């Protein structure tokens, strides 16, 4: 057992920190306030390789590993969760599944430009009636000659409106239930594809979550990902990988909030001394830092398990469950230490607290993670 990061990871971490501090942090409050999608940051992320970190070089990625991906998400999430949401959805939920399940042609056509940032990816599983109960898919795909015809809608789709490459889950044979689901690579330019209502969200307000509408949307037959009937399996395995990214987001957010809090308590004076000199403050921070340390071990471990090609699904669920709950807990406790100023938008802590909440919900709620973990334990 080795708890040390390798030299390349340390150097990458240093780069992520500088990038986060100089390129991402200055925009964070503005993106939230204006609910603005950071197109300019995405260009910079692409330039330095963020859009395809865990993908091999032959498919346009950096050739780095999941641990590096996690380190990048952790560092960027310390300063802006919106930004990490955009590129984790792109990487974990679009580039990675096409790399994992796609044909060589699909990989060349989509994974390469996705990793280079020439395309932006998204993933559509959730429907108005199919949230946690993802098997209740209503979107249909019917094969007609050399193409499928898609009809239906998806909601809460991260990157929608800005993405041009979507993985869409749709029913090809309703009689087979989850085994009748298939996955498709859908380009936004295909006829019959449109983006609907944009949700107004509580947090990660710079990222988008719109409805996708398919009205006789024509998808070429060769854009079927995997085989017909593989859709649910692909979606679930994709979310397994995605959870590692969300765990890293939540971890980074908790660390970022604590960093802001430590800075604040050293400056703020009450009763004639800095509030960092009160034992309550010290104990709060010690407690939070201890939990963050544990969270970090969970996240790094699951990344290493994936890199070693070992079973990682239960660990991904545990990491996501623990880290996302911790992000909400830490941001709330930090805001309390900020007091009234924490409640104002003068400081980033209220934004961090609002952002934290989504990590307990997207890519499987905390309850879904408990279902995965208890299922793995075979206790029912």
């Amino acid at each position: 057992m080795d708890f040390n990061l390798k030299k390349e990871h340390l150097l990458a971490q240093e780069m992520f920190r500088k990038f986060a501090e100089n390129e991402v942090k200055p925009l964070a409050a503005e993106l939230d306030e204006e609910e603005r999608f950071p197109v300019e940051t995405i260009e910079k992320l692409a330039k330095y390789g963020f859009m395809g970190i865990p993908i091999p070089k032959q498919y346009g990625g950096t050739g780095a590993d999941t641990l590096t991906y996690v380190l990048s998400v952790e560092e960027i999430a310390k300063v802006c969760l919106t930004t990490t949401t955009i590129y984790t959805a792109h990487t974990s939920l679009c580039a990675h599944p096409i790399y994992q399940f796609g044909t060589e042609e699909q990989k060349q056509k989509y994974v390469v430009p996705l990793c280079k940032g020439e395309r932006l990816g998204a993933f559509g599983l959730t429907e108005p009636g199919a949230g946690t109960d993802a098997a209740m898919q209503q979107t249909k795909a019917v094969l007609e000659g050399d193409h499928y015809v898609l009809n239906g809608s998806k909601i809460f789709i991260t990157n929608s409106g800005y993405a041009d490459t979507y993985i869409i889950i749709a029913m090809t044979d309703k009689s087979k239930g989850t085994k009748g689901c298939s996955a498709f690579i859908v380009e936004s330019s295909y006829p019959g594809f449109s983006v609907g209502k944009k949700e107004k969200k509580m947090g990660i307000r710079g990222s988008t979550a719109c409805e996708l509408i398919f009205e006789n949307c024509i998808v070429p037959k060769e854009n079927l990902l995997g085989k017909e009937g593989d859709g649910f399996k692909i979606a679930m395995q994709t979310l397994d990988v995605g959870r590692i990214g969300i765990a890293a987001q939540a971890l980074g957010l908790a660390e970022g909030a604590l960093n802001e809090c430590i800075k604040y308590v050293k400056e703020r004076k009450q009763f004639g001394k800095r509030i960092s000199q009160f034992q309550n403050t010290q104990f709060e921070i010690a407690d939070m830092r201890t939990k963050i340390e544990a969270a970090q071990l969970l996240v790094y471990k699951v990344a290493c398990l994936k890199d070693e090609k070992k079973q990682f699904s239960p660990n991904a669920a545990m990491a996501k469950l623990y880290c996302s709950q911790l992000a909400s807990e830490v941001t709330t406790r930090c805001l309390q230490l900020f007091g009234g100023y924490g409640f104002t938008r003068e400081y980033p802590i209220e934004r961090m607290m609002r952002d934290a909440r989504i990590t307990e919900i997207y890519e499987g709620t905390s309850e879904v993670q408990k279902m995965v973990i208890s299922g793995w334990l075979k206790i029912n």
Partner: protein
Amino acid sequence: MKIVVCVKQVPDTTEVKLDPKTNTLIREGVPSIINPDDKAGIEAALQLKEKVGGSVTVVSMGPPQADVALREALAMGCDDAILVTDRAFGGSDTWATSSTLAAALKKLDYDLIITGRQAIDGDTAQVGPQIAEHLGIPQVSYAEGLDVEGNNIIVKRQFEDRYHVIEVATPCLITALTELGEPRYMSIGGIFDAYREKEVKIWTLEELKDTVDQANLGLKGSPTKVKQSFTKQAKGKGTLLQDVSADEAVDAIVAKLQEKYII
């Protein structure tokens, strides 16, 4: 164009604190960085390569730990890296350092050598110019701009109140100011290539034997001896002008500066 950039790994002086008891630098836990002027030199070299083609080799003399500085340069996009390291080079002053680096450079093929103007830990600004003298090539120091015209380099050389545009034939050496270029980030792929696919070549005294006079190496070959180092005591409190208008304050400051021949 074959470009060689000489870099030094230095403690990040923005993070250095003084031990209040001993008045010495606390080096423990202080991160090491590529000297900022040198890093601007790397950026300028990479931009020149992107413009006219060629290669960028980065050379550093230092302890084995300087490896990470060279990996960083590789991750920014440099093609090759050489670490000149040997116990025999320890304790070098600028003369011994420039002698050693020149010996290494004699083994390389180059059109342009870039060094930083000066390192933030020593602030001598001597090593670059000395290397040019050892190699017998023209030098232009304090470069804030660089371009190529045919076989010549056009350098914008900074002065306090003006700049000169100098055309210099290759091979030549220039010393870079941070203004020469805002260094790019390492790329993520570049970092992994730097460790997994590229190599930092190690050159010891053995490799330099035929190009160096060993009398010029290390502590023994260093004519500079540091006699004493001390922390400067703060001067007096200065003059405090209270209850004056902004105009009066400006007049007072200008008068004082003129009195001291600063302006």
